[in-house]
């Protein structure tokens, strides 16, 4: 922990409640530029809530979140600033069903980045090629398979040229045969050096690309380590239990 500038995301003693339910307890987390982090844990442990706090889809009540030097508070300008730099991929894709795949990708660049349409379309086509579905550009999301939709969602986020990508269980809603096509895209992205925070149960993905695996339970970060050490030599009993359940079958 040397230079503060090195961290692109800093969470400092973050606490959050839903009503009286204490979901996030004193979360401390520093993410370096280019770091790839996988977050796992049982459902209800607060892992999704934590990454959703980072782009203020959820509001935290105590503590400090700093993204790329901007403090996340109730200031709409700061929130907008952060959301421009942070891309997010959802479990249920959340594509806009009334727009074509290409329009889905160009919407934010045109309206948020004020990019000319031609340029936005060129960029969108570039990313659609990277997720390997340029031929679907003029179809509507309803006409695509789940795996294709999720790849469009990834391309849509990338079009904003974000510095960080958040993935909120991106493969949980997919049929098994489609998981691989999405994971392949994510692996490629990781290998290109994108900073990623990824909530997922795909332990294979974690072993392959993660720099660090974080295990959460009951609103706390219980254990974090490099994947090798995390999987082969877990420290806490809860981690062991969880790993035996996830990897056991």
């Amino acid at each position, binding site marked *: 922990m040397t230079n503060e500038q090195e961290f692109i995301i800093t969470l400092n003693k973050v*606490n959050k*409640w839903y009503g009286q339910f*204490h979901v996030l307890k004193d979360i401390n987390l520093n993410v370096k530029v280019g770091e790839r982090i996988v977050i796992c844990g049982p459902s209800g442990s607060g892992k999704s809530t934590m990454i959703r706090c980072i782009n203020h889809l959820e509001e935290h*009540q105590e503590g400090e979140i700093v993204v790329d030097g901007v403090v996340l508070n109730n200031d709409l300008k700061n929130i907008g600033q952060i959301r421009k730099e942070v891309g997010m991929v959802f479990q249920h894709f959340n594509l806009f069903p009334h727009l074509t795949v290409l329009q889905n990708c160009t919407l934010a660049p045109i309206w948020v980045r004020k990019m000319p349409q031609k340029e936005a379309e060129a960029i969108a086509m570039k990313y659609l090629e990277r997720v390997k579905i340029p031929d679907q550009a003029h179809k509507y999301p309803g006409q695509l398979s789940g795996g294709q939709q999720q790849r469009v969602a990834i391309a849509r986020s990338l079009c904003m040229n974000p510095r960080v990508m958040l993935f909120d269980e991106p493969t949980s809603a997919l049929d098994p045969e489609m998981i691989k096509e999405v994971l392949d895209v994510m692996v490629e992205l990781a290998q290109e050096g994108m900073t990623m925070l990824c909530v997922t149960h795909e332990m294979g993905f974690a072993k392959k690309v993660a720099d660090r695996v974080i295990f959460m339970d009951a*609103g706390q970060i219980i254990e*974090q380590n490099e994947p090798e050490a995390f999987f082969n030599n877990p*420290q806490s009993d809860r981690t062991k239990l969880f790993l035996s359940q996830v990897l056991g079958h």
Partner: protein
Amino acid sequence: MDKFTPIESRPAPLVEVGVIGWMRKNLFSSIPNTLVTLFTAYMLWIVLVPFINWAFITSDWFGDSRQDCTSGGACWVFVTVRWNLFMYGFYPEDSYWRPNLAFILLIAILVWLSVPNLPYKKWVGIAAVTIYPVVAFVLLYGGFGLDIVPTHRWGGLMLTLVLALVGIVVAIPIGILLALGRRSEMPVIKMVCVIFIEFWRGVPLITILFMASVMLPLFFAGGTDADKLMRALIGIVMFQSAYMAEVVRGGLQALSKGQFEGADALGLSYWQKMNLVVLPQALKIMIPGIVNTLISLFKDTSLIVIIGILDILGMVRQALSDPAWLGYPAEGYLFAAFMFWIFCFSMSRYSIYLEDRLNTGHRN
């Protein structure tokens, strides 16, 4: 690496929960929001305070004539003096027990049907649409030793209820037939049903009532003047069955195709398929829709004032034109509005309750 120590849950900070947290979130979350809160609260204050003052605090409730209204506010004496008239119209006073009994029977049946887990629901339901209408008709009209009360003496809330209930009960079977006809594969049947449904749905009820009162007498042989109420009821039933047909059609469409195919695969005939498999399920889905059409019909019955039949609104209007009681239109109309509202609102709550119950039923 940090050693892990579990943290106990702490209560949320006070600004988040409790009264203050609630108010901050719901009333004063931003400056525009605060302005809206203050403005609406002020508007509410300047409307509600004088109204409550007029309707309750400085109002008179009991007495015999307008001289008893001395407090300066609402003169509810106007209503209480005519209570019986508003409820029963010109029904003979010594026979009030007859509509009362019919009404109590109805309530008993409805309670039986709506409370979950009571036995014999099916039989009570069948009795409600077969035996009860006969019993209620005899009670209201007479016969079997009871004095005949001609329909022109019926009126008030009683008549409103009669119109709405007869309309709905007769419209349900016709509506089911029309809906089945509309889905039929026989072109003639389908066309007849579509024309029938779209015609009655396309014209306003008031023109149908005009038609019933001026055109219908011409349709009968020998120009018999059928009972005026009867004619209005024919019009209402035609109108209502067209709307009911659309509710039934919605219910049938909501049923999965597998149910139809399953019944066909078992070798059931068309009517067996409908009676044993399709309609029992579809009817369940349709109940909220039926209640909603009942609500519309209940409100629409007020239109018969225009052709000179005195339901509760008609009785109120007649009372308002009484020279001894001029000048209380606000009391009269508010009372009528309240009566309609009570019935419609409780029915709409019931239909929402049913919908919720049905929804959970589907999920499980």
